[in-house]
């Protein structure tokens, strides 16, 4: 776990010296399982800054919600750094208006895994090295952090921020890309009927609250295709067709842009699995185009580029 005091010191310096107008990070939540995204505008406020495994959001989602010209500081983990890069590539922010405080990430704890085991009456959560100590009304439970990590974090390839302005803590070793591949291949090896049944079961639990969309840094369209009324692209209701269309098209819009952070799944109130779709696209983009989203702040994703020497596969 990186030294929280060093993160705070750097955040404080940025505000004191006027390097940035606001620092986006986390503060302690109103409930112990849910630290909240927070916006610090004065050095004094930095005392409330927290960092821990329960910080479940991808803070890059707030980048497009802040005024374009503002100078933003942000505490970023590996995936958040890449999301920021991908947004810079897409012209959503000038890199010089950003200051990234990088934190090597040991993975995000999925609060649901705690609640499923000890119930919701959680009074306090403490982290010590690889352990997570949860105090409940009934007593204390200790978990190995690894058991509680969100699936996306278990197969994370780039835990260390790749282009932060400062890195707090030691860089962590890169993850094994085979883990991400294996997850995709396992799903692909299932018979078609089983895959479709899984897709139906997940998609049709949807209540169309669009928490996945709002939690995703890359979903920043002023008007989403589902909100468009003329023409209407999908069925409006929570019908199987409408919900399937939402999940498929949402995933497709992420091809070459998704950084596998898993914020969509963590935001879902219905525990719907979504990363099996985006991971497949990420895998395809990696293997067919040798591209990973957000690895630098210049390269356009494959599906966003058109060049004169593009191959015309339909000609001889």
């Amino acid at each position: 776990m990186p030294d929280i005091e060093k993160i705070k010191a750097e955040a404080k310096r940025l505000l004191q010296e006027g390097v940035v107008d606001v620092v986006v990070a986390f503060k302690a939540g109103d409930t112990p399982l849910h630290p909240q995204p927070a916006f610090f505008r004065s050095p004094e406020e930095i005392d409330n800054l927290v960092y821990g495994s329960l910080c479940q959001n991808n803070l890059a989602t707030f980048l497009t919600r802040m005024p374009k010209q503002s100078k933003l500081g942000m505490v970023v983990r590996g995936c958040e750094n890449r999301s920021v890069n991908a947004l810079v590539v897409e012209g959503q922010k000038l890199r010089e208006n950003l200051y990234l405080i990088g934190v090597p990430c040991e993975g995000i704890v999925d609060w649901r895994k705690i609640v499923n085991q000890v119930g919701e009456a959680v009074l306090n959560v403490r982290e010590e090295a690889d352990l997570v100590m949860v105090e409940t009304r009934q007593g204390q439970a200790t978990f190995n952090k690894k058991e509680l990590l969100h699936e996306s974090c278990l197969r994370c390839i780039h835990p260390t921020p790749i282009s932060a302005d400062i890195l707090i803590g030691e860089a962590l070793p890169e993850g094994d890309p085979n883990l991400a591949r294996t997850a995709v291949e396992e799903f692909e090896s299932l018979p078609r009927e089983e895959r479709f049944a899984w897709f139906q079961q997940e998609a049709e639990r949807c209540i169309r609250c669009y928490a996945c969309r709002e939690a995703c840094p890359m979903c920043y369209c002023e008007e989403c295709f589902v909100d468009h009324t003329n023409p209407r692209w999908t069925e409006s209701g929570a019908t199987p067709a409408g919900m399937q269309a939402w999940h498929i098209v949402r995933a497709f819009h992420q091809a070459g842009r998704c950084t596998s952070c898993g914020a969509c799944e963590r935001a879902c109130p219905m525990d719907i699995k979504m990363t099996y779709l985006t991971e497949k696209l990420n895998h395809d983009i990696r293997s067919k185009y040798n591209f990973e989203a957000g690895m630098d702040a210049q390269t356009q994703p494959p599906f966003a580029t058109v060049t004169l020497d593009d191959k015309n596969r339909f000609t001889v």
Partner: protein
Amino acid sequence: MNLILEKQTLPALLRFWQEDHDVYLPQKLGQFSHFMPLQEQTDPLLGEPHNTRIPPKSLFLPMTETLVKYTKYGTYKEVDPEVESRIIFAIRPCDAQAVKLLDTVFEQERYTDPLWVERRNNTITIGLGCHEPCHNGFCTTVGYGPFNKTGLDALLTDLGDSYMVETLTEAGEKCFQHLTPASAQTEALVAEIQLNAYNSMEIAFPTVNLKEKLEQNFNSDYWKEISESCLSCGVCTFLCPTCFCFDIVDETQRYERVRNWDTCMFRVYSLEASGHNPRPTRVERTRQRISHKFVYWIDQVNQIGCTGCGRCVRYCPVGLDIRAMLRQVQQLPLEVSHAV
């Protein structure tokens, strides 16, 4: 009347009801509980310390439903709800109270929603009180409680191997007519359980002057502060048992006019045809959500439009907690009016 229902006889009773009714009760769906019809192999999930993920308002106001079917030749036909007689078993008091509140919306003198009324008239609600109130719920704060009886035909109190059933209406009495009456001793025990449950709940925020403070601070920076981390998704409102907004859409490909749940938290909700949006940002939308529950409901029916079920607290993806938001409101200034 107070009766004793042995837990081991419950499956038989559910089957007995099933002869004349569709019986809905909480069952496990994935990692959470959900109201579903009783099936051959149903395993009721009654020991959950808190509520079903989706509130039972969905049994009266489905997420999506067809209102009218039409043809391209200009003829149309309203959809008949065709609701069978239903029993909703083990609904929690906060959710039953919420449905009762929603009656004031859908069963107004001048505007009555026939689908809502049809479903309400054909439904018996049997409540399960909360002897161990859930951690994030705050029903007592908003004037209700873990054994609140409003909107119920009968209320159950868990006694370990049995329930004590309090029948509250004729319909409720009919459901339990063959049971033995509870002894005076049991009744006293139940009263104690209910009181203890009530007393175990902390007051999450003071409600005194809350409405006035919200009204007076309509333009306060407070709204900017609390809405900054809001994602403007629909989790809090869709999972809210008292949120009832819907949108009516013509699904022209299948010639149906449908209504879908909608929410004031979405940008497009208040977007007008001209392009103007009176609630353009998360600031106005968050203010609307809170004010509706704690100001406008009171204006309209003199009751707080929140039953304290705690779902919005539990599932907000950025950890926003309405209890903390309202505690903060109570810190805002209140101008005392000296007008004569």
